[in-house]
């Protein structure tokens, strides 16, 4: 985000913006927010001023190298929204695997080889890790249908006091291997196959925002993406089956969590 919005001496930002390093957006913002609270308390800022703090990170800077800094900031309860743009790999450095990369995906550090067919580990579930921090608001969303879900969750996150977390799936045409114009189609398939369920957790209560009437098979999501191409070779059917099993299990777990956390 930094490299595309703020190349000296130009900036695309009209509001105040700070970038320091890769793994520490949450920690940097912790300091800015603490300073705001301190200056506000001391009367060093105008009384009617109200500032919200929003951090943006990719899955590399959030799931992986920045997880400690994010966890620390959320636990300390800074009044901020952390937005993760999850494109499922380190795309900026050239498509290396992250812990957000789905199983079997072909990346430049988990190439689909003759012995090891892509990434052999499952994807980390970051939104649930954030739920484990007992935040007032955690959401998982995607740009879909005029961005309605995304807008609504962003608004809730921004207007909820305290540490909030929003995970946004951000398909990468180059890294995932699909045509750019198919972005909205890929987004829709991620949701309709339940690969990327839309849900929010408000004060610990799960709410699944969309339940497909007929869940599509995972092949529909995998097939248009070159990173999963090897899964469709003869003899690799087991990979698709395994992927489907995992999607099903995670979807069921989510439905169960919704039921359990909403019990009277």
């Amino acid at each position, binding site marked *: 985000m930094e490299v595309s919005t703020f190349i000296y001496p130009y900036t695309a930002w009209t509001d105040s913006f700070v970038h*320091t*390093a890769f793994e520490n957006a949450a*920690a940097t913002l*912790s*300091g*800015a927010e603490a300073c705001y609270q301190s*200056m506000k308390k001391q009367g060093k800022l105008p009384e009617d001023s109200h*500032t919200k703090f929003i951090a943006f990170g990719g899955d590399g800077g959030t799931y992986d190298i920045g997880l400690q800094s994010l966890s620390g900031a959320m636990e300390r309860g800074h009044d901020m929204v952390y937005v993760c743009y999850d494109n499922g790999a380190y795309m900026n450095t050239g498509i290396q695997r992250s812990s957000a990369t789905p199983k079997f995906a072909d990346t430049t550090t988990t190439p689909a080889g003759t012995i090891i067919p892509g990434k052999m580990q499952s994807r980390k579930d970051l939104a649930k890790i954030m739920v484990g921090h007992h935040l007032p608001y955690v959401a998982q969303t995607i740009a879909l249908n005029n961005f309605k879900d995304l807008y609504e969750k962003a608004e809730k996150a921004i207007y909820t006091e305290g540490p909030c977390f929003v995970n946004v799936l951000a398909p990468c045409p180059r890294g995932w291997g699909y045509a750019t114009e198919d972005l909205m189609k890929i987004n829709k398939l991620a949701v309709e196959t339940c690969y990327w369920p839309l849900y929010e957790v408000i004060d610990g209560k799960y709410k699944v925002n969309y339940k497909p009437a007929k869940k599509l098979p995972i092949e529909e999501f995998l097939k248009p993406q070159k990173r999963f191409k090897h899964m469709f070779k003869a003899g690799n059917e087991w990979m698709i089956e395994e992927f489907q099993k995992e999607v099903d299990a995670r979807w069921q777990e989510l439905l169960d969590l919704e039921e359990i956390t909403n019990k009277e």
Partner: protein
Amino acid sequence: MSIRERLSGNEAAAIAMKQINPDVVAAFPITPSTEIPQYFSTFVNNGAVDTEFVAVESEHSAMSACVGAQAAGGRAMTATSANGLSYMWEMIYIASSMRLPIVMSLVNRAVSGPLNIHNDHSDAMGVRDAGWIMLFSENNQEAYDNLVMAHRIAEHKDVLLPLMVCQDGFITSHSIENIELIEDDKVKEFVGKYTPEHYLLNQKEPIAMGPLDLQAYLFEHKKQQADAMCKAKQVILDVAKDFEKMTGRKYSFFEEYKLEDAEIAIVCMNSTAGTTKFVVDELRAKGIKAGLLKLRVFRPFPAEEIAKALSHVKAVAVFDKADSLNAAGGALYTDVTSAMYVNKNQVPCINYIYGIGGRDTKANDIEAVFNDLQEIVKTGDIQNPYRYMGLRG
């Protein structure tokens, strides 16, 4: 009237921070600096300061939060040691490149590995080229005084650089000594209000900070940091003058202890200077003209002034409490000898690596060095300049 107290170096640092009353303190505990955030958080929780204390989950986040806070428009302070500073390393450079006058109390300790919690200067030496002003302190009084002067130096419009005040872990941080504290209101007045020209929370002038800075500009921005470091020299002297007016205590780039007519001299930093003064006095009683140059300001490095101060002696030994492992000598030695060379000072100069991992430095060790210097004066032969003091054979 100043307040006479008995405090450890860590207490002295924490009290200076209380009197400075920064907007944010972000710190993570690490021996031997842990007590500083501990004492400070009691000030916070008892309402003695206005500070927001951010109990971060790591030193990397401590410096990140300090950068965020200072960029937002407040004063930010922290304290750390050894591996804590190593873990901050990435952010240390970012803090100075963003020209944020953050102030740190660095309680010097050996950087791992192997693991050791005791004093040497390997932590500080690891950041000597990071664009921070680095002040060293012989005792708790100097650690306190340096912190009181810190913001005036760092925040000066000609400087705008972060600053660290070093003191020796355990040796001064945990030793209780007499100290003269300055009254709260005097410190408040001396330090003054922080009024940054540009900051994130200024709603009238939003600002983007920390750009991607490519080939077209980075070089010039680095030169600006270098210029600021050069200008810091005068500011350090000016602030010391004002400080002397308030307290009567005199500070400069370095202290010259019986150096004026000395024939043999030692250059060192922090607590070893105290032991060296004792040895100098003993030798002087025997008629030996020994002297000391105790360096206070390591960055900016007062090259010309050091070369001049040592120009009349006949042999010099530079003490480094960190080995550079470079087959040539310690960092302070390299700096001092290059300063002497370019200023046409041809005095023989040797190096002693000492006190590594908290190895005790005794008066007779230092006396042996003065004996070596006398031998060099006699023979004119420096033999191996890269030596060790207190190392078991």
